[in-house]
């Protein structure tokens, strides 16, 4: 091992000196540059099992992650239907009782945030795109990468198993606040919560294996010429989000372990002296607020773990389909990095009315509103990219546009909740529910859809069906906007969240019931539209129009592979050499309206490139 080291260091040095002067590269276009370090040894699959099940190819692992995440996401979708039916039409179709309702709410929330969004963005898109986009043959640790997926898979199984233990899954709310999460007044406080905590711990372990892979691959395995400031924003988003995850998930896993000990061994990390139903419990001295700090130290960065990859991906979608470079690339990169860093200093804005020292409110309101500045810059740059662009209104672009509207909408309601005093009347109401669904539910999921329509031709070699896609888009966008926009107004009335039933509270106008029913119907419609999407994904593998190579005429490396879909090892005999950033669209003087990253300047002599 130590013998390898000097050689490696040498290799890296050579690489970076090469990069610093991109100008002279034009003089020796065809010259093949010998690698300073030996090529990575890849384990090539020999059977069905090593190709599709215990597979070490990041692309297949990405697909495995995506399929698992979408499958468990469908469970969460059905749970959301059930609770919406309860809220709008109690006892009309079935009566579920409060215990089941709270269990569904909890599982829906946890699945969507952790097991769907995090796993899909980082495990799914991260695995598929990172090696392809940075010009690497695979992740740097393919075997660990494989284990990462299987840990995730087991975590999902443990989660599902909690539906079948006595008492059912936990109904503690996705935030799992103790003491109620592990005391008898909450459904699933015996078996369900333990399985949930175990599942989360397994998820964190599996994710750490994947996350190290993503970070090291991006830092160490980029191809020649791929400087950090030439990387597509998708990679910047995933890279920064993974670093956040590596720093935030430890807080989650320790709080999971501590709560498991409180529950099983009777320790009192989070448990003060309590009297429950007239009985003195054997706890004493712990702090429930401590859990909240740990949870949100994970939980707030978690929002950005989901949002940053979405930011990155949507930047690329907009740029490719508007045939224009992303406006202010360097500012976009710095905005991602700054948002990521700041996201560790805002966690207690989830706790303004938690009973922590009220003076914290000043600090966290200020940091929270500061984070709005880089976020706003990103929004401006997205719409400025459209300005004087040449906009193709295809499916990925439609989803990107819908993302901008929903994200801005959800972002500005964040300015309500982040501003400590405004949060006081609105916290724990439907305003919060509407806000986080808009900003970290609908907005990132629209990006996921856009990204699937965008990269499906790369994964399968076929296009998704366009008319079905249009139907899916309009129903999903308009439907979910119709769900969550009016929901804010329920929050203004003061309707509290996590209420199994409202009865006829005197302060709520009866018309609010009608609104509730409207929201439920819209939710059912939007849910069913996803079935069309699923059918489209499955049927297009066979029936889809053949896409061919680089169908969107994109610049980034993943579209420049020798084969479509790319094979194990991604690129042909030689790794591509990168001569420019990923956004050379509509360069004046160039023949085509795009110049791929691996085209040397000598091939596009007339092009007046400003940024390389």
């Amino acid at each position: 091992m130590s013998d390898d080291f000097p050689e490696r260091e040498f290799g890296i040095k050579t690489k970076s000196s090469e990069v610093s002067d991109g100008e002279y590269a034009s003089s020796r276009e065809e010259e093949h540059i010998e690698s300073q370090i030996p090529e990575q040894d890849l384990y090539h699959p020999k059977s069905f099992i090593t190709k599709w099940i215990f597979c070490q190819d990041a692309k297949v692992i990405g697909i495995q992650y995506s399929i698992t995440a979408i499958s468990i996401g469908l469970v969460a979708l059905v749970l959301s239907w059930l609770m919406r039916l309860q809220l709008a039409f109690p006892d009309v179709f079935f009566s579920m009782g409060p215990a089941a309702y709270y269990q569904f709410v909890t599982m829906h929330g946890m699945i969507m945030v952790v097991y769907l969004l995090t796993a899909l963005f980082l495990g799914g898109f991260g695995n598929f795109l990172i090696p392809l986009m940075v010009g690497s043959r695979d992740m740097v640790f393919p075997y660990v990468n494989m284990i990462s997926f299987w840990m995730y898979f087991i975590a999902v199984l443990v989660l599902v198993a909690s539906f079948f233990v006595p008492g059912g899954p936990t109904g503690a709310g996705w935030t799992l606040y103790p003491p109620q999460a592990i005391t008898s007044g909450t459904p699933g406080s015996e078996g369900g919560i333990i399985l949930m905590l175990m599942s989360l711990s397994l998820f964190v372990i599996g994710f750490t294996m994947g996350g190290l892979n993503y970070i090291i691959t991006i830092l160490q395995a980029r191809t020649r010429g791929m400087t950090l400031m030439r990387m597509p924003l998708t990679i910047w988003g995933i890279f920064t989000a993974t670093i956040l995850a590596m720093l935030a998930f430890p807080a989650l896993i320790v709080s999971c372990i501590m709560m498991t000990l409180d529950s099983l061994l009777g320790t009192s990390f989070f448990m003060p002296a309590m009297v429950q139903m007239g009985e003195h419990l054997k706890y004493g001295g712990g702090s429930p607020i401590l859990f909240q700090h740990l949870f949100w130290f994970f939980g707030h960065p978690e929002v950005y773990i989901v949002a940053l990859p979405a930011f990155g991906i949507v930047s690329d979608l907009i740029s490719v389909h508007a045939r224009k470079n992303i406006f202010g690339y360097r500012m976009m990169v710095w905005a991602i990095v700054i948002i990521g860093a700041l996201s560790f200093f805002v966690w207690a804005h989830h706790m303004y009315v938690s009973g922590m020292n009220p003076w914290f409110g000043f600090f966290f309101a200020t940091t929270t509103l500061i984070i709005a500045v880089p976020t706003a810059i990103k929004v401006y740059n997205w719409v400025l990219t459209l300005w004087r662009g040449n906009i193709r209104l295809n499916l990925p672009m439609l989803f990107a546009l819908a993302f901008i509207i929903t994200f801005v909408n959800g972002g500005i309601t964040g300015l309500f909740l982040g501003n400590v005093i405004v949060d006081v009347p609105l916290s724990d109401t439907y305003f919060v529910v509407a806000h986080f669904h808009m900003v970290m539910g609908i907005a990132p999921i629209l990006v996921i859809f856009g990204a699937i329509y965008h990269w499906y031709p790369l994964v399968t070699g076929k296009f998704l069906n366009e008319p079905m896609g249009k139907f899916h888009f309009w129903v999903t966008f308009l439907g979910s906007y119709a769900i969550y926009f009016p929901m804010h107004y329920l929050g203004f009335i003061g309707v509290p969240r996590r209420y199994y039933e409202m009865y006829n509270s005197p302060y709520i106008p009866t018309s609010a019931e009608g609104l509730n029913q409207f929201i439920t119907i819209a939710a059912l419609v939007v849910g069913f539209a996803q079935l069309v999407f699923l059918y489209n994904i499955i049927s297009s593998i066979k029936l889809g129009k053949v896409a061919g190579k680089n169908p969107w005429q994109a610049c980034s490396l993943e579209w420049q592979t020798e084969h479509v879909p790319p094979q194990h090892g991604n690129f042909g005999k030689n790794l591509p050499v990168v001569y420019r950033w990923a956004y050379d669209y509509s360069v004046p003087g160039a023949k085509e309206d795009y110049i791929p990253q691996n085209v040397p300047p000598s091939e596009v002599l007339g092009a007046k490139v400003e940024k390389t």
Partner: protein
Amino acid sequence: MIVAIVFFLVLIGSVVFHVLTPWWWTPVASNWGSIDDTIILTFWITGFVFMAVGLFMVYCVWKFKYQKNRRSEYKPEDKKLEFRLIVITTLGIVALLAPGLLVWNKYVTVPKDAFQIEVMAYQWGWAYRLPGKDGELGKVDIKNINDENPLGISSKDKNGIDDIIITDGPLHLLKNKPVKLLLRSTDVLHNFYVPQFRAKMDMLPGSVTYYWFVPTKVGTFEVLCAEFCGIGHYAMRGEVIVNEKKNYNEWLNKQKSYKQSVLKSFHKHKDHKHKDHKHKGEKNV
């Protein structure tokens, strides 16, 4: 074309909905009208940004539709424009934050003449304690809680003997008298929330939290638990009645002190208080 129109309608529809909505906050019944004002201010600033960004996007979609022979503008960066946008956004943020923090400062600064009332939450109901004639609340300890002493008042503290205890029934407040609610819980997290008062704070076992307000309207208001507390969370309701002085005093005189209620329960069956306690929770369900 159609795409731009639909997006345009979504934006206009949002404004129309906002103007015409029948769903709006309840009339404020406390001194926290200033919180409503900060919400209105936030609405104007953020609503303007939402519409500006949205309409700009719609314009671009309508104006710069793909044409085969056209090229996009090539302009990777525009430092001046980016700098201006940062400055404008920062100003907007300051305009939101500064008034917000001023009101928050009021929210956390309790006036000295505030009348202290203790609210104790349990799964799933509320109990209240008012200071007796001495004007002071006695010490409590969760270890002292039992059937006769549901609030855990310490018998060593003289101030506690005459404390008024309300375990069943609404809390009455005096109009225009500032109150500081001392919040605690015996079991899990709760939150004492009256929508019309706007104020809110979690209640934690093991510590005492607080907020203050001035009730400004006579009337009966519903209390809701606003922090998830288990299976009966949605049924954890209560009532606050704000009175003028005369009615308030009438009510106050009927309430029993700790001493009186201990003596009373001494004559009754030992379990009664406990059952009563439980019964109330069930009634709410």
